[in-house]
C-alpha cells in the first residue's frame, strides 16, 4: 500500500499528467482510508481554483 508521502505525490502528479491504471487504483485505495490525504487532495484542487480566479487575473468566479 502507498504511504502518505507517495499518495500526496500522486495526487499532485494526477493534476499534471494522466495517471496509469495501477496508480489510480492504489491512490483510490489510499484515499479511501486516509483522511489526511483526502484533505490534501481538496487543498490541491483549491489551489488550482484559487490561481485561476486570482484577483490580478482576467477571470472572476462570477464570470465562469
Amino acid at each position: 500500500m502507498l504511504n502518505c508521502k507517495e499518495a500526496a505525490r500522486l495526487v499532485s502528479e494526477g493534476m499534471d499528467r494522466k495517471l496509469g491504471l495501477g496508480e489510480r487504483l492504489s491512490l483510490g485505495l489510499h484515499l479511501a482510508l486516509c483522511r489526511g490525504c483526502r484533505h490534501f487532495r481538496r487543498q490541491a484542487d483549491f489551489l488550482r481554483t484559487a490561481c485561476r480566479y486570482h484577483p490580478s487575473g482576467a477571470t472572476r468566479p462570477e464570470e465562469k
Partner: protein
Amino acid sequence: MPMGHATAEAISPDGGHASQLEAIRSDMLRFALLQLRDKPAAEDAVQEALAAAWEGLGRFDGRGSFKSWVYAILRYKIIDRIRQRSREPIAEIDPGAGFDALFDRRGFWLPEERPADWGDPLQELENAQFWRIFDACLNRLPKGTARVFMMREFLGLETGEICQELGMKANHCWVVLHRARMGLRLCLESDWFESGRGGYVEL
C-alpha cells in the same frame, strides 16, 4: 501612447477601451510581478502588452471580454521573458529538503502535520485579506519553484510545454510542481486557515 485620455472615452469610436486599459493596468502589473518577481521586467511586459493591445484594437473582434483578450497578450509577453531567463538554472531544487519533516519514518503524515479540513475554501476567493496572505505565500516559494508553478496554474501551460520552455525533464517538472503545492498549502494552512482566517491577525 494615447492612454489616459479619459475624457475622450465616452465618445471614442473604440468604445472606451482606453479607459479600460488604464483600469486593468494595475491588475496586470500585479499578475506579471507575482510571476516575474522583477518590477522593471513586469512593467515592461505590461507596457508591451498594452501597446500591442492598443495597436491591435482593430483585430479585437468583440467576442469574449476585452480583459481576457489583453491578458492573452500579456501571457505571451510574460512567457517571452521567462524564456529569455530560462538559461538561468533552477538551482534550488534540493531533493527531500523541507517536507520530509511532515512524515514519520514510514512516510505517513505525522499527526500534527496531517492536512486539515479547510471547510468550504471557495468563500475565501472574495476576501481581500485572504489574497494578501495568498500572495505572501506565493512569494515565499523559492523563485524557480514558483516560476514553474505559475506557468502551470496562472498561465495554464501544459507540463510538457513548461519542460520545453525551461529545458527540464518531465519528471523534474512534476516534482517541482508537487513541491510548490506542498509549500503553498502549508503556508496557507498555518497563516490563514489555522490562524483565524484573518479575523484577528494584524497584517
